[in-house]
C-alpha cells in the first residue's frame, strides 16, 4: 500500500489495523433501536453475552481511568467527566468492539477525551483566572513533592502521543503491544514515542535531577 510510511510498513497502522472502533454501517442506519446498557448493543452479535457488563467494567477500570485522565486534566471532576463520557459512549455508541477489547477502547477514549478537555480548558483559562488544580492543592497540602509536580507538568507539555505512551507504560504498565492497540499505532512507534518522550522529559527536567535516558532502545515489551 503506497500510502504507508516506513513505520506502517513495519506493520500496524492503516485501516486493517484499527481496533474495530468504527461504527458499523448497520449500526449507523439502525433507525429504531435505542442503545441498551450492554457494551455492544448489536443483538445479532453472538458474542454479546460474553461481554462484560457496565458495572463490571466500571469496577475494573473506573478508578484507574480517572487517575489516568488526571495526568492530562488537572482536576478530579473533569477527569471523572471524561471517563464517564467514555463509558457512556461505550455503552450507547453502537461501536463494534471485539470481546475483551473494551478496556483498550475505554483507555483510548479517555486519553482522547482528556486531551480535548484540556484543549478547551486551555482556551477558557486564557480568559478566566486559573482555578486551583490538583497540583496546587497538593502543594498547599504539602503532599506532593516538587519533583513529582515538575515531572507531571513536564509530562503535560509533551506531544499527545508521547505523553499517552508514557502514561500507558509507566502508570498502567501496559505492554508495547497493548499500548500500540490502545493508541492505534505501530509497535515500533510505541518505542519511538517512549524514547522521545523520556528524552524530552530528561531535557526539560535536567541532568541535575535525572540520569540521562539510555541510548539503547527502550524495551517496552
Amino acid at each position, binding site marked *: 500500500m503506497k500510502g504507508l510510511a516506513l513505520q506502517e510498513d513495519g506493520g500496524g497502522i492503516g485501516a486493517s489495523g484499527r481496533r474495530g472502533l468504527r461504527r458499523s454501517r448497520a449500526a449507523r442506519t439502525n433507525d429504531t433501536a435505542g442503545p441498551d446498557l450492554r457494551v455492544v448493543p448489536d443483538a445479532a452479535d453472538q458474542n454479546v453475552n460474553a461481554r462484560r457488563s457496565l458495572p463490571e467494567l466500571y469496577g475494573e477500570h473506573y478508578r484507574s481511568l480517572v487517575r489516568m485522565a488526571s495526568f492530562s486534566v488537572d482536576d478530579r471532576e473533569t477527569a471523572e467527566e471524561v471517563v464517564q463520557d467514555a463509558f457512556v459512549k461505550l455503552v450507547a455508541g*453502537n461501536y463494534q468492539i471485539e470481546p475483551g477489547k473494551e478496556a483498550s477502547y475505554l483507555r483510548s477514549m479517555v486519553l482522547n477525551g482528556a486531551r480535548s478537555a484540556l484543549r478547551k480548558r486551555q482556551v477558557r483559562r486564557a480568559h478566566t483566572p486559573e482555578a486551583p488544580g490538583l497540583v496546587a492543592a497538593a502543594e498547599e497540602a504539602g503532599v506532593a513533592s516538587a519533583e513529582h509536580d515538575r515531572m507531571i507538568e513536564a509530562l503535560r507539555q509533551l506531544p499527545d502521543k508521547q505523553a499517552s505512551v508514557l502514561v500507558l507504560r509507566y502508570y498502567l504498565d501496559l505492554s508495547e503491544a497493548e499500548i500500540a492497540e490502545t493508541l492505534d499505532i505501530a509497535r515500533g*512507534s510505541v518505542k519511538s514515542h517512549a524514547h522521545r518522550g523520556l528524552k524530552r522529559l530528561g531535557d526539560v527536567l535536567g541532568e541535575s535531577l535525572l540520569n540521562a535516558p539510555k541510548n539503547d532502545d527502550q524495551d517496552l515489551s
Partner: protein
Amino acid sequence: MTIEDHLRSALKHHAEQVEPSPDGLDRIQARLEPSGRQRPPLAPRLLAAAAVLIVVGLAGVLSFRSTGTGDVEVAVSSSTTNTTALAAVENELPPRDDPDGAESTRPNGSGVVEVTPTFADIPPAPAGVLGPRAASPEAAVELFLGLIQRGTEDVMIELQNELASVTRISEGGLVVDVTTVELGSVELADGSTGFVVVEARSPRIVIETPTRLSANSDARLSLTGQGEGFEGTIHVDLYSSDDGVWLSSGFTQAGNFGVLAPFETDLAVSGSGPAWLVVKSSGGTETMLEPFAAVPITLDAPLSEPTYTITNIPTDDPDGGLVVRSLPGTDGTQVGVLPPGQSGINKRAVLSAFIGDGEPSYGLGPVGDGQQEWWSVWLPEPMENGRNWGWVNARYLAVDGPVANGDLEAIGSQFVEGLRGDDAAFASMNWADDVTFGLSNDLSTTIGGKAALPEFWQDSFSFTLPPDFGGTLDGSLREILSPTGSVLAPETAVGIAVVPLDSPSPYSVVNADLAARFPGASVVQVTDPTNDGSGWRLINLFVQQTNGSPEVVGVVNILWTP
C-alpha cells in the same frame, strides 16, 4: 535513579491523590437513562449564544430545483427567517422522513444522528451551496460540519455529540455557539428531495470577500473580513464542493476574543470547480464546535506547476500502484490506484497534510520526524470512478523531468562525503536521532522505503547518533546518512558518475526494474574500488526532484562482498 524510575514514581504519587467520587456508576447510568440522554437544558446556552441557527424551509427562503442536467437552479426569496424563537422556526422546517416529524428522524433515538460522513457516503452537492445533499436538515448540517471539522476519530465522536444539539433545531432548540447555518432544500433530477447547507454565518466571523457565489480565476484567492478568536487566530480552509476534499488552508490574524477586527489574507488555489470557503476561529466556549462562517464560491484557477510523476513503486506492487485516497493519510477511503510511472499529475491542494503515527495532524510547515506529507492531486485522466482528484503520499511523487547534472553531482558528492570513514548507511527516519543502518546484497529488498527496514538488511544495527554528527537526517538525504564506521575506507578512491538509468551494468544490476520503479530518475553511481574487485561496492543513488529540491528517492547497494 533513571528517568523511567522518576516518571513511574511521579505518576504513582499523582494518581494516589485522585480518588474518584463514589457515585460515578450512578452518574453514568443516569446519563444512559432515556430521560438522561438529553443534554443539559438549552436555556443557558440560548442565553449565552450570540446567534441561532437560521433554518430555511422547503417552502421558504431558498429552494433549488434540478434542471435535469445535474445543474441546480437556485431561487432565493426576499426574506430570510432570523429569529431567536426557535419554536417558531420549527414550523418552517421541511418535511422529514417521518411525516409525523417525530423522534425517528434520529436514527438511534438518542438525539445523535448516526451519520459518519465518508467520501463514499456523500452525494455530490449541487453547485453554489455548502455541503452535501442529505435526507434531512439535521443530516445536512451534520454532514457539512463533519466535513469541515474532520479529524481523528475522537474528534468525530465529539462532533457527533455536539450534533445532538444540532438536531434540536427541529424541535425548537439548538445553539451552535455563535454560528448561523442556513438550510435549503433541493430537488434533484431523480425527483428526490434533499437538504443542503447554503450558508454559514457568525457574528464572530464575517467574510466580506469573496462574496457568495463569486468566481475566482487567479492562482491566489483574496480573502477579507472581520473576526475574533483565541489569540486572534483565524483559520481559513477551502473545500471542494464536489465531495468536501480539502483544497487549501491557511491562517491569519484578526481580533482577540471579544474584539472584532479586520483580517486579510489569501490562499493559493489550483484547478476549477465549486468550492466552500470556510473561516473558523478558535473556540473558547463550552461547545466543541468552533465559530465559523462559510460561503460557496467557484474556482477557475490555473493548474499548478510543475507536474509530477509517480515514482518508487515496484512494478509488481500488490496494490497495482499508488493508492489515491479521499483524505490525507491511510484512514482516507481508497478512491483509485495510479499505475507506476504515471506523469502529468498536478499538486492540487497547497495544503500539506502530515500524518504521524496514526493520528492526522495538519500543518503548513516542513515534514517532521515520523510524519508524512500528503498532497491533494489533480490527475490528468479520471480514475475508474470518474474522479480525477484525491490524496496521495507525497513521497511517491517526483517532479516530471530530469534533474540537472550539477545537482546530481552535488548530491553524489554529499553522499560520498558522508561515506568517508564511514559505513554505508541507509537510515530509517522513524526517529530523529536513532538510526538503523546496514548493508545488503539483496537488490530486491534494498530499494526505496524498504531500505529503511532493518529486517531487509544483511547486517543491521541500531544506534544513537553522536552529538557531533554532521550528516543530514532529512531534506535532500532524508533516507541516507553515514554514521561512523569503517566499511568504506576514506582513504580509497571513490568514484562518482552520473549514469543513464537504463545503462548496462557490469554488476548484474537489474536496471530495467529500477527504471520502472524510478521512472525518469537520474542515477548517481558511487563506486568504491577499495579492494580491487574482492571487496568493492557500488551504490546507485536514484535522484529526483520532489518537493522543492532534488533528493535521493532510492538507494541501491548493488553489490556488497563481505
